[in-house]
Each structure stands twice: as C-alpha cells, then as structure tokens.
C-alpha cells in the first residue's frame, strides 16, 4: 500500500502484510513466520483435525519444545507424564502436518524466542507470531512480532493470516550512554516502572535513540522481549548494520543474490523522517541505575539503591491496596532498602536473558568467586547452541567452579512448569520477565533483575548492586 505520508516502521510492516481490508472488518494480515511450541498449540491442531483442514504454509511454520521440558541431562526421560504427553503430542502434530520441528533431543533445540533468531528465521520486516506473549523478542530485528492465543494459532495454521486491527504507535526514546553495571535489562525494567504494566496497552513500541543503537542484537532482544510487561503486544527496533551482520550466514538467512535483495528491502524499513507516533516517552540512559522489582508485577520496579515504597503514599485507593497486597505477598516492609534483602535462589536464564552476552556478563562477576552457600544458583542457557558455545569459551567451568548449576536449555524457572521452581516463601533474584505471584513456583517471591545483578546477588546471598562488589 504505497503512500507518500511519512510512516513509522510499525506502519510500514503493517501495510506490507495486508491481504484484504473489508469496510468495518479487521484487516486480514499475512504472517511470515509462525513459531509453535508444545503448550499453546495442541488444541489448535485438534481444531484443524475437526475442520479437516491442513496447515496452509508448513514452510513458514516452525515448532520446538521449551516450556514443559526439563533442564536435566538429556539422556534422562521426561519423568512428568503429563509433560511427556504434551511433548510427544507436538512431535506427532509436526509430523502429521509436515512442520519443521526441533524436538527435545535435537542438537539445536532451545527456547523458541532464542532459536528463531539464532537459526536466522527471524528477519527484518516480517510479521512473526507465536502462542506466547514474549514473541515481541523478535522485534529486535525490525519485525512486527506478537503473541497470540490458541484460537489465533489455529487461524494462522489454517490460513497463514490473522484478523487484526492496527495498534497505536508508541516511541520509546532512550538517549545517552549506559554506565558500567547498567544493561539492556535495566532499560526495559525502567520503562515498565515508568509507564506501568498497562502503560502500553493497545500499542506497539518502537525503541529509538542512541542508547538503543549502541546495544548489540542480543541486548536489543532483551529490551523488546519485555514489551508485553509494559502492556504492549509488540516492540521493535529498526534494523541497521548490526542487524544484517547478525543474520548473515545463519542457517535460514537469505543467501547470495537473495541476500542482496533482502538487505536492499530491509533498508527501506526504518521510520521516515517526519513520521509521528501516537505516544512518546523518553528515558535518560545516563541517569539509569541497575533496576530491580520489589512487587508482584514487572511495573513494580525501582533503582537497586532505592527503598521499598510505602502504600500510604499512594493516593489512588485501588493502587494503595495493590501495593499493600504486593508487599504482604513479598513479605517486605515499606521503607526498607531493597539491597541487602536475603535471597534463596538465583536464576540466570529465560527468553529475556539466556544468550551469550548474558552468560558472559554473569561469568564476569562469578569468575574467581564462590556463590553464597545459602543460595542455589541455576544457569540455564537459552539453546543447545548457546550451551555449546558457552562451553567452548569455558563459561560452564566458571559457573561450576563458583558453585552454580549448569543446565540444559529450556524455559526452566521462568515458568515453573518443568520441574524447576521455587518452594513456597523462597526469594529469588531472576533474570526472567515476570514476578507475578507464584510465577516461579507456588508461594515463590521473585525479584527481576539483570544478569549482572543476579550474579552479584548469588555471591553475597542478598540483593546486591554489582557496582558494590
């Protein structure tokens, strides 16, 4: 749909995918890449069977297992029979419908949002969907990527399209330079704290500014990954040389002449000069400190040097009550400094922070140190490929020498449906994306933070500012 009006990258990708637009109805939007995992797909495949419909584009569909799979050694069977059945069902569905599938034993298995980019499946300008709210991760490549429910998974399998209305556009401008000890995770936690967990509802974020341009592709994935924690279904970053460099040569990346054509197309995607957004917010990277959450949603966060807020200081009665309940669940006192809070578990992993950059950051803190004897520390690489690379660099040995566990790839303790979980009342510092009640195990209490903060806290056994080590 050509237009002379300056457009954002969000509008360009949207316009490029409109199959049909009937008056009053949502657009029929074409989907370039559909990622499928074991948890949100079985009922969709059952629906296809009931309809007698095939998968329209198995060549644009890709399946793997990550959520309910254990992170114990791969030669052990999946002991949870319900999970084992779910994993077997995806394999059966992938075979029956002819979908490319990386199974539990595949050497390239991993968290779906880690392996999409790793395999070169995720590319600029695409529409990417998955039955998972952290699909926004793929936005780091300039793709319009968002989570969908199982009914929508069925629709995409059947038609390769979705019925959608355009979202509002929301620019998140991050200018300046991050200080040592401050990372991509702190940018997105700061955004969640600034606009709140519902602040981006109805919107797609575009992250812009010098601090975003300075981030590596892996760090950009961390930022986009948690767009949903600020309410936005998707968040993206315009592609640049770093993006092309990352994709080039990967297994499913375009090759030869196709590559040149692809890059030429990708260069048309960035937001036009003069394009406007429905909303804009600015974050000063120079002023950012390491961030940590204190409550029971990702918007309840603050600088690690801060103190737990007092419900009495909230003017809105429902917000006051929310904060009171959160502090009661977390068993924290208003006014206490968050640093120094005793913890039981450190989890380094998840689709937010399980890539090489994250593991190297954690290892840089743990090298030559020991984790506190009172803390269980789990390091879970995002994919088998990352596991191999980390082992080639000797990072696994750094973690083991420090007293941390080095596990197999998967969602692990981010979602606690695979055997990795907190016990009731335990505290964790976690590099994952959600601190909802019970998210990491019934009764568990989560502090979300960066890999640097998690590693520093692992050493001391209390919430720790890495800059103080």
């Amino acid at each position, binding site marked *: 749909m050509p237009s002379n009006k300056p457009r954002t990258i969000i509008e360009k990708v949207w316009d490029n995918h409109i*199959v*049909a637009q009937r008056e*009053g*109805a949502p657009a029929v939007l074409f989907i370039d890449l559909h990622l499928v995992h074991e*948890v*949100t797909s*079985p*009922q969709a495949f*059952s*629906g296809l069977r009931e*309809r007698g*419909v095939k998968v329209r584009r198995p060549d*644009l*569909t890709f399946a793997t297992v990550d*959520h309910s799979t254990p992170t114990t050694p791969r030669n052990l069977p999946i002991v*949870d029979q*319900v999970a084992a*059945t*779910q994993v077997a069902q995806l394999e059966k569905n992938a075979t029956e419908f002819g979908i*490319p599938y990386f199974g539990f034993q595949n050497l390239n298995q991993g968290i779906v949002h880690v392996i999409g980019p790793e395999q070169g499946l995720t590319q600029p*300008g695409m529409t990417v969907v998955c*039955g*998972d*709210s952290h699909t926004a991760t793929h936005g780091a490549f300039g793709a319009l990527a968002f*989570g*969908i*429910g*199982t*009914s*929508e998974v069925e*629709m995409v399998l*059947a*038609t*390769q*399209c979705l*019925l959608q*209305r355009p979202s509002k556009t929301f620019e998140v401008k991050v200018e300046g330079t991050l200080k040592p000890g401050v990372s991509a995770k702190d940018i997105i936690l700061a955004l969640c704290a600034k606009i709140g*967990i*519902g602040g981006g*509802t109805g919107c797609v974020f575009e992250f812009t500014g010098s601090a975003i341009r300075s981030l590596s592709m892996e760090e950009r994935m961390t930022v986009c990954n948690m767009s949903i924690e600020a*309410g936005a*279904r998707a968040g993206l970053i315009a592609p640049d040389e770093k993006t092309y460099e990352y994709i080039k040569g990967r297994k*499913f990346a*375009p090759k030869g002449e196709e590559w040149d054509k*692809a890059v030429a*197309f990708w260069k048309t995607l960035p937001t036009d000069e003069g394009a406007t957004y429905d909303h804009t917010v600015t974050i000063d990277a120079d002023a950012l400190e390491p961030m940590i959450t204190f409550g029971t*949603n990702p*918007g309840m966060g603050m600088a690690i040097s801060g103190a737990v807020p007092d419900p009495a200081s909230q003017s809105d009665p*429902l917000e006051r*009550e*929310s904060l009171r309940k959160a502090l009661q669940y977390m068993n924290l006192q208003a006014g206490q400094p968050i640093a120094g809070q005793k913890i039981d578990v450190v989890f380094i992993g998840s689709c937010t922070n399980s890539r090489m950059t994250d593991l190297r950051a954690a290892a840089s803190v743990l090298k030559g140190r020991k984790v506190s004897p009172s803390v269980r520390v789990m390091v879970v690489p995002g994919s088998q490929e990352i596991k191999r690379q980390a082992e080639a660099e000797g990072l696994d040995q750094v973690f083991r020498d420090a007293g941390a566990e080095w596990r197999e790839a998967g969602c692990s303790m981010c979602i*606690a*449906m695979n055997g990795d979980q907190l016990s*009731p009342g335990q505290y964790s510092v976690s590099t994952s994306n*959600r601190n*909802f*009640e*019970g*998210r990491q195990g019934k*009764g568990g209490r989560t502090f979300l933070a960066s890999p640097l903060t998690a590693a520093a806290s692992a050493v001391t056994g209390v919430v720790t500012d890495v800059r103080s080590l």
Partner: protein
Amino acid sequence: MQIQSTVAVLPNDNIDTDQIIPARFLKTISKEGLGDQLFFDWRYNADGSPKADFVLNTPAAKASKVLLAGDNFGCGSSREHAPWALTQYGLQAVLSTSFADIFKQNSLKNRLLPIVMPKDAHAALFVALEKDPALQVTIDLPAQTLSWPGGPTVEFPIDAFAKDCLLEGVDEIGYVLKQDAAIAAFEAQRSISLNTLA
C-alpha cells in the same frame, strides 16, 4: 445476547493470567477441565480444600455469570486457558476499566465479554455492590449497554466485527478460510521471498 446476573467481585488491579490459571495446569492437551483450576492458588489451601473466604468459593459467586475486577485485567501471558477456565467456571462477562490486548482477543473468541467501563461507573458499581451484594446487572450486547437498578446505563465499546461474530455465530477461521483467493493472490505477488524454511 443478554446477560442478567449477580456479580462476583474481585477488586484487585492487574490480575494476571498466571493468577487466573497457574502455568503448571497448562500441560494439558485439551481445553476441558480447567474451571476447577480457575484462580487455583487464590482459591485453595495447601491441602487442596477450598478457602471459604475466597469470593469464587461462595455459593453466590458460583451462581454469577459476571465478574467485576480492577484495572488491566488479564495482563501477562497469552494463554487462552485463562478465558477457557473463566467460561468453564460459568462466567460470561468480565467488567473492568481496561483489559490486556491478548486476553481481550482470546475472550472474544470464547464468548466471554470483556466489558470496559468508565472509571466513575466502575467505582459506582463497587459501591452499589457493597450496599447490595445480591444486585443484578443487565448486559445488553446488541445495545452495548450495562445497567443495574438505581445506577446509570453505561455504554461500553466493543469491536464491531467481534460483536457481529458473537451475535451471528460467525466462525472467524471459516471467514478467513473463505478468503483463500485473496490470500493466494497476496502470496503470488510478493516481490521478495521471505519464506526461507522451504
């Protein structure tokens, strides 16, 4: 589609889908049997017995088709198990001041109405229900109104297409399947091939 019902009240803001149905119940490969797992960790004691003081365990709530909740209901994960669990419990509508995007989509596809209320009417309904917990609300989908005795008639927004689908029983997947020719034409005209998995 008209709903007349008493109202179960859960005043919390930001009720996330991990509370609506915890992840450990998502290992199922079916849509069935999720109603008993709705709000599991808020609803049951460690020994599995129901918490008598939790609203959804009261006989009054069990007869309600409408849930009144705080702002930003359904935030978090994309799990459609959340509306499946809510409808299997017996709910047909949730009232809030806003809904998370994915939850709203999932609800509409499962005949669960996500009704967005203006802040003042939302607050007024809480007060009215405190005075009279047996108060019945009436939801009229064709008219897009919500009302209760002694209260205002509140107009609520709903996607026009979703409304038609609900009222006329349109199958959305069937609707898109019928546009096969347009999809095929779109696939054929793509100047740049992004399909790299073939």
